Structure formats: structure tokens, C-alpha cells
């Protein structure tokens, strides 16, 4: 059997410095400064990637952000020209990349279907025969003559999806497109993609969701900083990816430590506010601090903590004039209010602690 997609030693080099000279001035400056700079700004988004896909293969491309997943799809789609190696394809290709981009905003849906279809290489008669199907699938029957610039982004993506999937392709390229539109349309588009699988179509699918990849694909590969880490059956690859995306325990510990510190800081701030309340109550109402604490529903075993807080406040703020003390108090309370607007559950618990 002949492969439908053959990728051999594919490498994609991007030159970061070259991309920056957009004006003649920059160009001439760079001409002189180039030799040292060039090497440093080279960036290999993909290097030495090789694999073959046969009819019926559905490949899930996994990897962290910046691993080169979208780059490899674009190289296979022919948008990028490989720096090294080559990509061979056989059959009709349907690239579902960046749906909703590439429309002529002043054109209506009708005109865009013809323009976009012609870019995808469809024949005029083919578009005419599929026109109603496209419009109905995109659910845009009422908006055929409306310029696309007035469409919502969801409508645009739906139209893009409908046009791209109007053909029965031999190679289908999907870049996280199954997250298009609302839930209903998402299910519909997934069904449509699934129905294409019945044939001998070859699929390349990029997603961050391992579940989705498991559901759709029978093969998978993991990219890591542009290198092909592994390639094989989905059931072999999925555990490796799971392990890869598992967080470093040190990282988790660090984050927890940070959260603990935050909670403690908030607790202190909240106690200080309460302490001030107690001071104000004792001063204004002529009651003892204990009575004030009881009025504020503070449990008896925490009285000692609050006594310390109060004496601390009096020690530190006693020297301030009354106005300054009030201002400071107001500022601190405002900060607590602000933090309390988006409290984590944990933090709420912590703040609640002081009350019980």
C-alpha cells in the first residue's frame, strides 16, 4: 500500500531577526550587523521529523504549547515550505486551519462560498451543486446576502467549517477545529468529521485534549520542541503523553507553599481589621475588649490571639494621629475587600477560620 502522507526529515527553520526588517532602513542596518546576529536568532520549529501515513490512519498530534504542532500541519498543508526534507501527499486535501479567517469581509456568504471554494481548488460546478448543503450546514440560510464583516466569529467559523468539509477529502487536516461554535454545532461538526472517517480518509488532528484524540484517532505522535518524540499506536502513546503532562512534584509543592503564605497573610490582615473594630468598640461604647469580642462572635479560645493583635496595633499605631490611623485602616480594609471579591474556596475557609 502506498502512503497518502509521507514526511521525510522535515525541518522548518524560522529566522527571527529576518522577520523584523520590514523597512529598507532596517535591511541596510541588518546587512552590516547580520553575521554575528543571524545564528543566534535561528529557530527550528521542527527538525528531522519523519513518518508515513496510510489510508485510514487517523493521527493525533500531541505536544505542549510551542512544540510545533500547528507548524507541522501547515507544512503538510503546503502553506509552509520545508527548510529541509520533503512532504509528499497523495489525493485531495482539506485543510481546516484557522476557520473563519480568510474571508473577504465585504462579501456576502454567497460570494464568499465561491471565492473560498475556488481558493480550496473546488470547481465552479462543484460549488454550485454543494451550495445549499453548505448554507444549511452552517445554519446561515437567513444571512446569505449579509456581508461577512457583520457576522459573529461563531458564524464565520461555521461557514468556514461547512465550506472546508463540503468535499470528501483523502487527507483531512484538523487544527483544534472541533471547538467551533456552541455545543450543538460542536456535536454536529464532530459527527460530520466522524462520517468522513468511514471512507479511507487520512486524518491529521491537533488537540490538547487527550480524550478527544483517543476518541478520534488510532495513531498518535508526540512532538517536543520540534523533535518527534514518539510515533505509534494511540494506546502506546497516550500513557507517555499523560506522564509528560503530569506536573513536576516540586512545582506543585512550590505552588502550595505560595498559596499557604497568601492564606496566612490574609488571615493576619483580617484579624487586624477585627482588632481595630474591638479597639473602636471599647473606646466608643466603654465596654471591655472581651465583651467586644463576644459581640463579634469570636470563640473564647481565640481571645488570647486577639489580645495580642490589639496590643500589637496599639503599639504600632499609637504613635500615629487618629486621622492617619483611620486612613491606614481604610486602605487596608479596601485591600481586603478587593481580595475578597475573588476568593478561592481555600482562602474563604481560612478567613472564616478567624470567625469561628
Amino acid at each position, binding site marked *: 500500500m502506498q502512503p497518502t502522507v509521507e514526511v521525510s526529515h522535515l525541518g522548518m527553520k524560522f*529566522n527571527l531577526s529576518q*522577520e523584523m*526588517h*520590514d*523597512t529598507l532602513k532596517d535591511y541596510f542596518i541588518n546587512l552590516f550587523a547580520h553575521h554575528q546576529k543571524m545564528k543566534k536568532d535561528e529557530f527550528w520549529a521542527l527538525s528531522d521529523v519523519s513518518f508515513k501515513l496510510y489510508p485510514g490512519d487517523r493521527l493525533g498530534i500531541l505536544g505542549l504549547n510551542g512544540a510545533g504542532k500547528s507548524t507541522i500541519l501547515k507544512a503538510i*498543508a*503546503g502553506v509552509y515550505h520545508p527548510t529541509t526534507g520533503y512532504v509528499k501527499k497523495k489525493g485531495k486535501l482539506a485543510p481546516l486551519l484557522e476557520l473563519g*479567517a480568510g474571508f473577504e469581509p465585504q462579501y456576502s456568504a454567497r460570494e464568499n462560498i465561491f*471565492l473560498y471554494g475556488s481558493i480550496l*481548488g473546488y470547481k465552479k460546478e462543484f460549488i454550485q451543486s454543494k451550495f445549499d448543503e453548505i448554507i444549511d450546514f452552517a445554519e446561515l440560510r437567513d444571512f446569505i446576502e449579509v456581508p461577512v464583516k457583520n457576522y459573529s466569529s461563531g458564524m464565520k467559523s461555521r461557514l468556514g467549517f461547512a465550506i472546508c468539509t463540503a468535499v470528501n477529502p483523502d487527507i483531512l487536516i484538523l487544527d483544534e477545529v472541533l471547538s467551533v461554535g456552541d455545543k450543538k454545532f460542536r456535536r454536529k461538526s464532530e459527527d460530520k468529521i466522524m462520517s468522513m472517517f468511514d471512507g479511507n480518509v487520512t486524518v491529521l488532528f491537533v488537540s490538547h485534549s487527550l480524550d478527544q484524540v483517543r476518541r478520534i484517532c488510532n495513531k498518535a505522535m508526540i512532538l517536543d520542541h520540534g523533535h518527534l518524540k514518539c510515533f505509534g499506536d494511540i494506546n502506546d502513546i497516550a500513557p507517555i503523553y499523560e506522564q509528560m503532562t503530569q506536573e513536576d512534584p516540586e512545582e506543585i509543592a512550590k505552588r502550595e507553599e505560595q498559596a499557604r503564605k497568601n492564606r496566612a497573610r490574609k488571615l493576619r490582615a483580617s484579624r487586624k481589621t477585627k482588632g481595630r473594630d474591638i479597639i473602636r468598640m471599647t473606646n466608643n461604647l466603654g465596654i471591655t475588649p472581651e465583651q467586644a469580642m463576644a459581640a463579634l462572635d469570636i470563640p473564647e479560645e481565640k481571645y488570647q490571639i486577639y489580645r495580642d493583635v490589639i496590643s500589637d496595633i496599639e503599639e504600632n499605631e499609637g504613635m500615629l494621629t487618629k486621622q492617619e490611623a483611620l486612613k491606614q485602616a481604610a486602605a487596608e480594609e479596601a485591600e481586603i475587600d478587593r481580595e475578597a471579591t475573588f476568593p478561592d474556596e481555600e482562602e474563604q475557609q481560612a478567613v472564616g477560620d478567624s470567625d469561628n
Partner: protein
Amino acid sequence: MKKYIKGFFDYRFLLSELVKRGIRLKYRKSYLGIVWSLIEPLMTTAVLVVVFGALFDRLKDQTFATYIMCGRLTYTFFQNGTKGASKAIRGNASMIKKVYVPKYLYPLSNVLYNFIIYLISLVVLVPVLIISHLAPSLRMWKLIPAIVMLLILTIGVGMILSVLDVFFRDIEYLWNVLLMIIMYLSAIFYPIERIEKHHLMWLLHLNPLYCIINLFRGGLMHYSNSLWEYGYPFIFGLICFVIGFIAMKRKQDEFILHL
């Protein structure tokens, strides 16, 4: 070569859609639409005839309107075609980023839609010729080589500009200045007799657009043209055309990195 011609036929529907888009969008939302391609040259030519006719004391010369119309129509097409082509790659960036299509189609479609508008606007020459009391003659065959050479020249220059413009945005501004120089070197609105004896006259002969305009005038106003005026714009245009397509072929894979 065969492969390229076959490729061209594969994409002819796309090319026709792109040309259609250019024409449609140009006059979208205007009441008169494509009729503007007739009215606009008539109106501007009327202004030029009055202003420069008075300035150069040519108001009594009935053929002055034809003289100006030939230059203006031709120059306007060259200007719109090359300007449109130079922006074509960047203007279609969102498509180029998604689907592989031979990149020359974008500037080419831009020149072609301007060419179609130009051909339509040539109709206005009929009333202008009547006003000028110029009868059609066999000399009008010169219009055919003139128009063909103009198209080749505009495609070639447009292609070169569109490649350069991807890498240097300055081209857009630089070309505006060059276009102005070309305009003054095309003798569009001043009578050529005024400067025929000038020692810088050779500059005009080095301007292929001037030669083409002169062929036009020779055909409509019944005077003969030199061999230079047939040969030079053709060779110049062909060289631009070849350079343009070679540059496009060599550089088109890099476009995506600069968009």
C-alpha cells in the same frame, strides 16, 4: 514549463473569482457602479482640457481632448494596476496563511481586474473622437500592440513590486514618488511640441509608458510612430515580466515568514 501552464489552467477559476472580486469591491456601494469607469475619465479629462488648454493656449485645438484622454487612460491603468499589485500579497495574507495557492495569482488578478476596467473605459474614446472630429482609420491597428505591451509591462512591474513589497514596506511610498516622475515623463497633459527641442527629451523616450501613449495617439490622431516606440516598450515590458515571474518563483516560499 508545461507544469506551470497546466497549473495555471487548474487555477483559472480562482483567478476569475479574484478578478471578479476586484471589480465588484471597487464599485460596491456606489449608485452608478461600473458606470464610474466611464464618467470618471470623462470628467477628469474635461478638467485637464480646460486647465491645460488655457495654460498652453490649446483650447481652439479640437484634438487636444483626444491627446489628453489617451495619456490619462493609459497612465491611470498603469498606476492602479501597479499600485494594486504591490499590495496584493499583503492584502491577501489571511488566505496565504491558510491554503497553498501560487502566489503570482494575487498580483496578476489585481492587474487583470484593473485591465478589464481599463478596457471598459476605452469606450469613452468614442465621444471624445467625435468631439475632436477624428475619423477612424486603418492606423487604429496600433492600439492592439499598444494595449498588449501595456498589459505585459504592467503585469511585469506589478509582479516585481509585489515581491519587493513583502520584504520592504517602503516600496509603497517609494513607488508613489516614482509614479509621479513617470507621469511627468509621459507627457499626459502638456503638448509634446513644447519640449521636443529640449535637451532632456531623451528621458521621455526612455519611458516605456510614453512610447505606448504615443502609439495610442499615433493610432487615433493619424501620425506615424518610430520603430523605437514599437520595440522599446515591448522589450522593456518583457524583461520586467520575466524578472517579475522569476523573482516571484524564487521568493514565494519566503512570503509567509514576512506576513
